[in-house]
Structures are given as structure tokens and as C-alpha cells.
């Protein structure tokens, strides 16, 4: 998977110490274990060791143990629900050195960042609950049948673990923020009214979220639910869908405008279900409709997620699973959404493209990541795109530095600033004001501290003049 010497996932397991307290029953504690091909003794040993560490450290602090650093590994602990522990182990990167003909390994402990690893672990739990509900909810649902829980965990994590990429995880995973689409008031109100009409026409639709590309415009879900669903949409559902569309486009010409032939001119629309029936003319195929668990109005509310997309605008409809989602409803939704969403999407794109040139014309000599803890708004010019698939504009070292500065600022509750000059003569500045954070990389080798400070002020004036962001 990864080059030797790079950070890589060694193990990932979930256990509950109360399930096998007696000797000889230790294996009962293990709820899930990756890698699967290790023998049961190793699993028991590993779980036992973790349990021991957790119990041991408890004597020193009220807070549970978070990480264990060793020379070659890093272990992260997370207790998402009572008595359930999630543990992830990664290897510490190393480099080979030859000295006097002898090969030695040098381990770079500082290259594994605890906040990032913790974030990955937390995120994997939230992703699990998004599709399954909380662990205790599952137990309750299945009459405390631990085996069913194990099956569920296995079903989910056996695939999810493979998507974990400790190498390319960074500050953005820690923030796990949401990118909001900048939109003028009137267009935003139009989107709002569109959603209101949608929800009043289709009473089954309980929550709606509206996205344009990978940017959020509106969420009827609570912040925390939206945060994880946003993650799911932007890192999993949308990329997979786009790839599938791309392939389809290669095979059949003009896939989008399927309504062009069936209805009269002028009502051509580009609406399609992303989840749900792939073709509204074929009632036999309902497609895949994900089942999600959200906590917006009640805990572990089971909903079906229908996603409908026109051009690059998507509406996510969450329908309480008490209601039946049938083909007839989907056709009605398609009729309602198709035209309107296409119109809205093109209106937004007009505004979007009108704004674009201004930012690209002047190549900024700085890159920044901004995050607001209050609304989870996140913005990054460090990354090529939000999916992080196309890489970053700064060096890996600088990226790690950004994360370190950020966690420093967070640990200190006061507002403040940190200025760092890197080995490559780059300036990195971290700022925190109330609940907002920003880390900036300034690529001006000859600047002194005062000049850098002025640069940051200029940047804030340019980008954050409408908020209370202190300098």
C-alpha cells in the first residue's frame, strides 16, 4: 500500500473489556479486529495490552488515555461509547541510514501527529454511526445480541479501514469542516424558498441539504450530522457518482439530457438521482438508497437518503424510514425537482463564474487554511481541491507544521498569534481569534517579522473584513 518507511496503518480494533472479564474468555472482548489474518492469540494479546494501558493510566488522570508513543508505532485510543474502545495503531515513519557499512533506521516520531490520528479514529466512529446508529442503539435493536453487532462492525469496517490513509491525512481531517458556497443573499433566499416548497410538497422529506459542487449551501440537519454527512457526500458518494457518470459518458452520448426527447422544448432539464432510481423511465430499478442515522430531532433516527443532482447542484433528501420510498414518489420528485433545480444550478453557476476570475487573476503568494469552530466553516487554499486527491501546494513538512501550530493555538485558550520561520525560509503564521483559526504560509524568503505581520494583516483585511477577526 505504502512505501516502506512511510506512515501506515498497522492495526485497527474495537473491544469491550466487560464482555470477557474471566480468564479464557478474553476473545469475547474483541468486537472487530484488523488485520483479520492475525491469529487469535495475537489479537487477545494486543487487546489485553491496550486494556492494561488504559486501566493503568486511569490511576493518574481523570481523562482517559489518548495515545501511546513507542519508537516504531503510535497507538491511539478512543472510547466512543461506554466500555467500547476503538484503537488504531500506525507505524512511525523511518529512514535508512548507512553508517560504517551498517544499516540503521532512524524513526521520525514527530511525523506522526496525534491530533490527526485521533481525528481519523473519531471520524471512523462517526461514519459507522451514520450508517448504523450508535453501538448501544444497535445492541438495543438486536436484543443485546453481540454477534449481530460484530457482524455489523465487521461489515462496515472491513471496507472502511481500507480507505483510511494516514499518509495523506492532515489538518483538514482535524477540522473536518464544511466548505460553504459564497452566495449572494437573493440567490440564497431562492434556494431557501425552493427547499421550503419542496419540503411542503413532499411531507415525507424531513431534512434537506443543498450542495453546489462540494460546497454546502443549506443544511436542515444539525451541525454534527451535517459534518459527517458532508464528509460522506464529498469523499465517497459524489466522487463515485462522477466517476460512474464519466464512464457512462464515454459509452453513450449525451447522458444528461434524457428529457430532451420526451418532453417539449424549453423544459429540458439535467436532473438525475444519484441515489435512488438511476433512470426514471425504468420502474424496475430502484437503485441503491443509503440508510442513514441522524440525531437532529431524535437520537438515531433512521432515514433514507435520496440524492438528486442537476448540473452540479445536489439536493439531499432525508426521508424517515417509516415512509416508503417507492418509484412513484421518485418520479414525482423528479418532475418537481428536475426543471427547478436545473434553473437554480445555472443561476448559481452564473454568479459563481462571475466571481471566479478576480481570485485567479492575482496569484497570491500565500496559502492559508481557515476554520471556524462555531459553524465548521472551512476554507483552504493550501489544498488543490477539497477532496485532497490532487495534492497540496506546500511541502509535507510545512503541512505538518500547520497542524502543530493549530493544535498549539487550541491548547492555549487565549487568542493569539504564532510566527514560525521554516528551514526553507518560508513564514508560517497561525492566528486564533475567539473560535476562529487561520494558518498562513507566506512564501517570501526575504521578509522580516514586521513585513510578514503586515502581509497577514493585509490578507485578513482582504478576506475577513466582514467578521470580527482580530489582529
Amino acid at each position, binding site marked *: 500500500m505504502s512505501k516502506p518507511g512511510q506512515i501506515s496503518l498497522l492495526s485497527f480494533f474495537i473491544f469491550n473489556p466487560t464482555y470477557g472479564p474471566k480468564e479464557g474468555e478474553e476473545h469475547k472482548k474483541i468486537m472487530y479486529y484488523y488485520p483479520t489474518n492475525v491469529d487469535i492469540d495475537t489479537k487477545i494479546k494486543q487487546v489485553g495490552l491496550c486494556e492494561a494501558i488504559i486501566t493503568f493510566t486511569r490511576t493518574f488522570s481523570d481523562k482517559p488515555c489518548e495515545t501511546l508513543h513507542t519508537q516504531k508505532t503510535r497507538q491511539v485510543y478512543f472510547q466512543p461509547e461506554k466500555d467500547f474502545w476503538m484503537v488504531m495503531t500506525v507505524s512511525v515513519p523511518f529512514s535508512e541510514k548507512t553508517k560504517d557499512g551498517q544499516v540503521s533506521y532512524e524513526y521520525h516520531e514527530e511525523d506522526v501527529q496525534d491530533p490527526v490520528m485521533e481525528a481519523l479514529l473519531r471520524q471512523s466512529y462517526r461514519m459507522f454511526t451514520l450508517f448504523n446508529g450508535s453501538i448501544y442503539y444497535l445492541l438495543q435493536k438486536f436484543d443485546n445480541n453481540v454477534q449481530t453487532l460484530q457482524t455489523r462492525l465487521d461489515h462496515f469496517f472491513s471496507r472502511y479501514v481500507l480507505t483510511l490513509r494516514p499518509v495523506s491525512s492532515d489538518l483538514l481531517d482535524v477540522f473536518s469542516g464544511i466548505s460553504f458556497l459564497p452566495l449572494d443573499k437573493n440567490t440564497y433566499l431562492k434556494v431557501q424558498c425552493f427547499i421550503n*416548497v419542496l419540503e411542503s410538497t413532499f411531507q415525507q422529506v424531513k431534512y434537506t441539504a443543498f450542495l453546489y459542487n462540494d460546497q454546502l449551501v443549506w443544511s436542515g440537519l444539525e451541525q454534527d450530522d451535517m459534518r459527517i454527512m458532508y464528509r460522506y457526500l464529498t469523499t465517497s458518494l459524489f466522487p463515485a457518482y462522477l466517476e460512474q457518470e464519466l464512464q457512462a459518458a464515454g459509452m453513450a452520448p449525451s447522458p444528461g439530457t434524457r428529457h430532451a426527447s420526451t418532453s417539449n422544448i424549453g423544459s429540458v432539464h439535467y436532473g438525475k438521482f444519484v441515489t435512488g432510481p438511476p433512470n426514471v423511465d425504468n420502474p424496475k430499478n430502484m437503485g441503491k438508497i443509503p440508510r442513514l442515522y441522524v440525531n437532529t430531532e431524535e437520537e438515531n433516527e433512521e432515514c433514507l437518503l435520496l440524492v438528486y443532482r442537476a448540473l452540479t447542484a445536489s439536493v439531499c433528501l432525508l426521508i424517515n424510514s417509516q415512509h416508503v420510498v417507492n418509484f412513484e414518489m421518485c418520479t414525482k420528485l423528479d418532475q418537481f425537482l428536475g426543471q427547478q433545480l436545473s434553473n437554480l444550478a445555472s443561476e448559481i453557476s452564473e454568479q459563481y463564474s462571475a466571481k471566479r476570475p478576480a481570485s485567479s487573476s492575482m496569484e497570491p503568494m500565500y496559502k492559508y487554511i481557515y476554520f471556524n469552530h462555531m459553524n465548521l466553516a472551512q476554507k483552504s487554499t493550501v489544498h488543490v481541491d477539497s477532496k485532497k486527491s490532487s495534492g497540496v501546494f506546500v511541502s509535507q513538512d510545512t503541512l505538518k507544521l500547520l497542524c502543530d501550530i493549530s493544535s498549539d493555538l487550541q491548547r492555549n485558550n487565549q*487568542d493569539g498569534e504564532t510566527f514560525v520561520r521554516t528551514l526553507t525560509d518560508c513564514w508560517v503564521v497561525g492566528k486564533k481569534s475567539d473560535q476562529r483559526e487561520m494558518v498562513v504560509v507566506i512564501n517570501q524568503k526575504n521578509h522580516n517579522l514586521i513585513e510578514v505581520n503586515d502581509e497577514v494583516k493585509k490578507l485578513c483585511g482582504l478576506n475577513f473584513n466582514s467578521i470580527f477577526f482580530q489582529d
Partner: protein
Amino acid sequence: MASDEGSHYIELCNSPIKFEPISKQNNVFYDDANQQVFTVRSGGSMGVVVKGPNDRGSITFRMEDRGNVNSMKFSPDRRILAIQRSPKSVEFINFHEDQTTDTSEYSQTCKGRSTEIKGFVWTNVNEIVFITGNGAEFYQINPDKRSLKNLKSLNLSVVWYVWMSRPDGGMLLLSSGQLANALQPVYFIQGSMLKLPKFEVDLPALPKQPKQSLLERDVTMAYIYGQLYIIVLRHQPRPGAVGAEVVLYMVPQQKESPAKKTNVLKLEMSGRFAINVVDSLVVVHHQASKTSVIFDIQLDGDSDGFVTNHFPVVSPLPIKPFKMYLPTLNIQQGQDKMEYNCELYSANWIVFQPNIVIDAKLGCLWSVELKLEPLVTMIPDKCRLVKFLLQRQKSKVVILDVFRQMLMPGMQVGLPVISRILDMLNDGYMQYLDQEIQALAIEPSSQQDPRDRVIIDQSDMYTNVFAVFEDNSKIPYKFKVAVLIEYIRSLSQRDIPVQHYVYELLINTLVHNNCFYQLHQFLQYHVLSDSKPLACLMLSLETEYPPAHQLALDMLTRLATANEEIIEVLLSKNQLLPAVRFIRKAGITDTVSSRKFLEAAMNTLDKQLFFTVFKFFQQRNIRLRGSPVFHPGEHCEIYVKHFEELFGTDAIPQSVAVS
């Protein structure tokens, strides 16, 4: 007859002008220019009584009986009475302010030997036009000299004429030609006579029948939506067509172009009709069926690009029946008055423009009035209903009522309909606001909208609609929020600033239902415009929703006039250093009250923080006055003492060693 209440949308006013009915001795004239009824007893020798809805009391006087009176009309200022008794001349009597008359009359004969006066109209105070068979003669009267001067004449062979007066003059329509269908509009305005382009009314060509000429009684004029129209009734428009129609010719504002046929109102009935114009609606009374219909030329209709065809707004219904006390005919019964069911659509009715019905036998003059409430249930399409109501005067209460009803549980209409109606209401609101602004730009009192349109502003909506539905717990909050957002959208798209109370209502609704995240998103996208009251409201929500604090601070920052408030917020949170940095950035260090900061710093019990803040202000003192000592007016003694207690007197430099 409560059950009957809802089925009539036209009524006659309940206080008619009563006059002595027409009889052998008693002649009755109506002057539609001044809206006055003249009852003339025995040619005037037994007295003349003049009554009208616009006159406070009636005018009574006597005049010599000099023969049969054909017509009599007061000048617009009621100071000269013109009487026509012969086809050759018109006589005048001057009136004094106390309504006593000069004893003697003076007169003016028309020009030419064979000319006959068909009638006369007052075009202005002291200006009169005689309409003769040969045209029109325009005179100016000098009442003091008791003489008339011919200003202008118009030569045209006239069959009949129609007159419509306006406050500044009037429009005379002269008919000529063999079929009397060549119409010549002549516009009169103070001292001048303006000929507008002549036009022809197309007459229906019926097979095997000679063309019927255009009759005077089928032609009227009226203002509809501030625009002058010539209204022509066509009994049989086309061969084979069933039912009469009303054709409207628009008289253009630009005087060069001739009147143009613009609208056709389909009556789908035939027989005798009479036309009124009430509140810019064309009301057509049909005698045979005893019903009336209304047409609204702005409502709906299909156009062929030139002419728009209209059908009645609602189905024909009779005028609301009513009873009246009238002098009884049976004196034997000892009653002098009896209740009569008034006969509607009586053969004795004469209809005048714009909205007058006279029953000369009964001696009554009514104005025709529109009842809006019954129409609410008769027009089921709410958009059409509101569009119709918005064009009416005095419809505000009804519209607000309709809108309120639309939101009530059980009667709720869909959001798209609400959206469209809100847009309609706000279109009018925006036009009104624009006019207000324009009126401010140019000199006041010059611009006046002739028609007072119904304006439904935000306070109307708030008090009559939103405040009511806010309290209704049966309406789901989602619907309330959706309606409010629709309203804000509609206003915002028209660049109308939204009032704070509308925002407040939205915020309260969201807060009461714990929709903080939604509220947060609205603020993030500036759906709720920034204001100090809104920022304060957000601050008050902080305990329930912590991010409200950040939102409030951001808003205050954007307002740029709220430095004081920002300082207060920061100090109240014990954010001393951010507060100090803020005043430094805002450049207001020299003007803020240092006491406020020192007090807050002392209260934190953080020695180091207090030291820092204290030193900061000392430095300011040095910069301002060359000494670190606080100005006595700042009342900082107790903080100086506190500082001394903490850090000793030595920590305070007594004076600065600057020369």
C-alpha cells in the same frame, strides 16, 4: 336575509339622494358633471331644488317661468346657472355666495340662423361650450359684465355628443357622419380647445339589413385605471354572434394618435344594457335578466396582439336587494311612510357615468358600489383574487384578511401560491416606495398619483397577518418559517429593506423551536440584514446558543459604527486583551473610558492582566499629556490604589524624565 349576504357583489349606496319624483308639474334634470339633480316645479316659478352627493345642503331658489326648461346646469363653482329653454339660446343667472340670485337673466344665442343648440356643457369656471348641429361654440363668460365672449368655434355636422368633465376641463365627443360613427374627441382645458384625431367606430355589417347607426345611448366615456376610454356597446357585434359586447377605445395620452380599440368585453347576453364604471371596473347591468357583471381589464383576457378579449370576473348576479321607506300612496291607513322593496333594474332607471343610477319615478339617486367581501369566495383562485383586489380602492382590509385566511390550518394554500401573492403585494409596495423617493427628489406636491393604490407594507403584514399566525400553535413552525422566508425573499428581491420586527419574528420562531443551526446559516448568508438591535438580540441568545456571541460580534464589526458595543461585549466576557487590541486597531484608544477597562481587569482577579491593562493606559496618558497620571475626570483613583497595593508605589512612575 343573512344567507343572502354573500351572493351580491354590487349594491346601491344606502343613503340615496332623494328628490321629488318626476310629474306633470315637476321636471327633473341631472347634471353628471357636477352630479346634481335639479327638480324644477312649474318651470321654476314654484321653486328649483338642487341636490347632489357632493353638496353639503341643497340649493333652493325660484326663477321666473319663461317656458319649458330643456336643461339646466351650474358652473363648476356654482356661481352661474345656465338654462336652456329654446333651441337658439342659453340663459344665465348669476348666484351670489349666499346662494341668492340676481333677479335678471342674461342670454347668449348661437351663431347662424338655422343653427340649433343640442346642448351645452361647462368646461371650466366661466367657460361654456354650446354644441350645435353645426359644431361647437366655445364661450367665456364675464358674470360681472353679464356678457359672453366667443373664444373659438368648431365646424362639424354633429349628430349627437357625449361629455365627460374633469377637474381641469373635460372631453367632448362629437358624433358625425351618416351612421353617426365618426367620432371627434375635443379636449377642453382652461381657455383652450384641443381637437384630437378623429376616429371611426366600426359598425357590424349584418346581411340583408341596413347598417344601424351608432346611438348616443350606446357610447360613454370613463377613466379606467387612470386612462380615458370611450366605451361603446355593440348589440350584435358580428353576424351569427350571440350576445352583445362592450368595446373599449383607449384615448392615448399623446394627442397625435387616434383612439385605438383595445379591449372587448364579452357579455354573452343580449337585450338592454347600462354601463357604470366603479373603481376601474366596468359594471354592465342587464335589464332582462336583472343581473350585473363586472369586467376588469387588468385581470385576465386573451389578446390577439391588438385587442384583448375579456370575460366577466365572476358570473352575473343581481344587485343586492334593499328596502326603503317611502311616502305611502295609501293615505287612508294613517301611515305616511311605508317600507318598500325597491324594484331593481326598473324601466325607470337611468344610468349616468361614472357610477350613478337614478330612478326618476321614485325620486332617488344612488351611487353604485362594489362589495369586496362576497367576491372572496367567488374567486377561488387566490392569485387571481389578490390581483383583482389589489387594483381596488379600500381593499386593504379584505386583502389582509384573505392572506391571513390562507395561512390558517385547514385552509392553507401551497407555498408557491403564497410566494406569488407576496410578490404581487410587494410589487405595489415597491412602486409606492419608489414614488416616495422620486417625490422627495423633485419638488413636493407636484407629483400625485391620481389613483390611491392599495399599499400593503411591512407593518400591515406584521400586525394583521404575521403577529396573528405567530400565536397560532396549530400551524407547524416549518410553515411559519417558510412563509416568513418567502416574505423576506420577496422584499429582498425588490431591494426593500426588511424591518427589524420581521426578522425578530423569524428569529423567535426559530429559537422557540430550537432551530439554532438554521438561524446560524441565515445569518451566515446575511439573510437577516445587520443592525444593532439584531446584534443585541443575538447576544441575548448566547446562553442558549453559544455561537450567537460570535455572530453578534461579526455583525457589530460589519456595522462599523458599533465600537462601543464591541468593547462592552468583550469586556463583559473578560476578554481584556482582545478589547485593548480592538481599541488600538480602531484608533480609539485616546477616547475610550479607561475606567471601564480597569474595572473589568480588576474584576478578573488576574494580577498580570491588571498590570498590563493599567500600563497600557498609563502609556496612553503619557502620550496624551506627558504624564502617566490619570486625569481626575476619569475617576481612576481606586484602580491606582489597587495597583499600588498589588505592585507597590514604586511601580508607578511619578513623572517622566522627558525634557
